[in-house]
């Protein structure tokens, strides 16, 4: 039996009564009070997530930018120190090895926050391409990451508003943190990178400030409502960025791994597209369910905000326009769904 890794907050989660599950080799909290109330806490106020299982890689040296420009799909030249960017690590076929956020710490020093399940693959990939004048190191064992998300999150933490995809070194109730204006919920908020030894103190301060502890289940329903892809479900080494609707993070005018294939797909138009849908019939779509006429569900759940089944799926390009009718095979029963514009859930204006 494989031993599961534990974050520095493990005892805190158990004490809070969290249901713990195995995820990407880690023992992680899937829910505390219940996924629906946690989800709604993030949409209406503030929730806190332990996402310390995610990996942190550091790339530095005079040729660090050159190395990453050749491997990542987005254009690093758009970043000043203090800026962050959503980007993809692509393979020769244009497939997605991982989606990640790159933080430009200094002109020649970067932090990459990568998916837990891809941490080793990404590290090995970049290490393989490492060039003289650049150095790649896996810093995941030094850091914890806490996401605090929701319309009242910044106010509860006493943090000033700041532009999304920026970061700053700072202090929260005496704990040194890197405050990243990023997240995976569609709400404003931040992700706080902290040394492992300070993680428990920071978590306690965040909960004292009124954040509801939230698990991986709510993290998944929140990201799916706003159509953020999950690597391993919606995007994989077999799917390309153009078909996945991630062309906006691909600088096709620069050279990076797989760019020729991505230019070709863009030019020809993708044969299938990653779309969002809402169930018309009462049913909950799940990953892997086939779609009539070709295609399959890549992520599916019950939307706590809309109170219906929702999901994302690859479908043939001709069935991908909003309002197209889909038939999903729900364990042998045909169930109707409708393609919708992304995101599936959007806050009504003026209701924040």
């Amino acid at each position, binding site marked *: 039996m494989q031993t599961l890794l534990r974050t520095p907050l493990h005892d805190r989660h158990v004490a809070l009564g969290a249901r713990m599950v195995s995820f990407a080799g880690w023992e992680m909290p*899937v829910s505390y009070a219940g996924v629906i109330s946690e989800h709604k806490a993030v949409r209406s106020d503030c929730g806190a997530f332990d996402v310390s299982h995610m990996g942190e890689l550091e790339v530095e040296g005079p040729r660090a930018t050159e190395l990453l420009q050749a491997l990542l799909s987005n254009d690093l030249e758009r970043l000043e120190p203090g800026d962050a960017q959503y980007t993809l690590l692509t393979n020769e076929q244009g497939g997605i090895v991982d989606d990640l956020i790159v933080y430009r710490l200094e002109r020649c020093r970067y932090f990459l926050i990568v998916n837990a399940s891809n941490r080793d693959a990404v590290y090995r990939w970049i290490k393989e391409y490492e060039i003289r004048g650049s150095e790649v190191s896996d810093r995941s064992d030094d850091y914890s990451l806490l996401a605090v998300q929701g319309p009242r999150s910044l106010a509860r933490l006493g943090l000033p508003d700041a532009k999304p995809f920026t970061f700053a070194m700072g202090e929260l109730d005496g704990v040194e943190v890197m405050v990243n204006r990023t997240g995976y919920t569609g709400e404003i908020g931040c992700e706080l990178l902290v040394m492992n030894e300070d993680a428990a103190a920071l978590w306690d301060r965040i909960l004292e400030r009124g954040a509801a502890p939230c698990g991986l*289940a709510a993290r998944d329903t929140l990201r799916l409502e706003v159509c953020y892809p999950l690597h391993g479900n919606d995007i994989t080494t077999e799917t390309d960025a153009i078909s996945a609707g991630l062309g906006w993070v691909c600088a096709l005018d620069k050279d990076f791994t797989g760019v020729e294939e991505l230019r070709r797909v863009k030019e020809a138009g993708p044969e299938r597209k990653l779309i969002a849908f809402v169930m018309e019939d009462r049913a909950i779509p799940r990953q892997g369910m086939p779609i009539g006429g070709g295609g399959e569900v890549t992520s599916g*759940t*019950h939307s*706590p905000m809309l109170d219906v089944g929702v999901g994302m799926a690859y479908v043939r390009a001709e069935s991908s326009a909003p309002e197209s009718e889909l038939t999903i095979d729900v364990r042998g029963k045909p169930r109707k769904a409708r393609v919708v514009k992304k995101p599936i859930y959007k806050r009504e204006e003026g209701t924040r």
Partner: protein
Amino acid sequence: MAASESYPDGLKYHREHDWARIEGDEATLGITWYAQDALGELVHYEAPEQGGTISKDTSYGEVESVKAVSEVIAPLSGEILEVNPKVVDAPETVNEDPYGDGWLVRIRLGDPSEVDDLLDPESYKSFLAEQ
């Protein structure tokens, strides 16, 4: 609000975590507190057809939470007289009141002797303790 743990007297229990309330030649069926707690908040009940038949120890419907799907196993055989419309509309009723408003179907018993195979509350609780 989720209910607190209980296994009421007067009900019969099945090892697949279902209960039956026997009333003459009819029975009301549902899932136990343990089953709803393991699943979490229910968001869908895939109910069987009224008028159809169900057979003991086989699946007659599905209940789903955000993360999981579970088949509902019939503790007894019979003809479905009624499906609980309240649970179809508001599946969380099962979490709130698993032995009351959260019942799933009412049946006419096909073979009353099957009741003898079911557990009383004490035996079911001992069975749970071994899980």
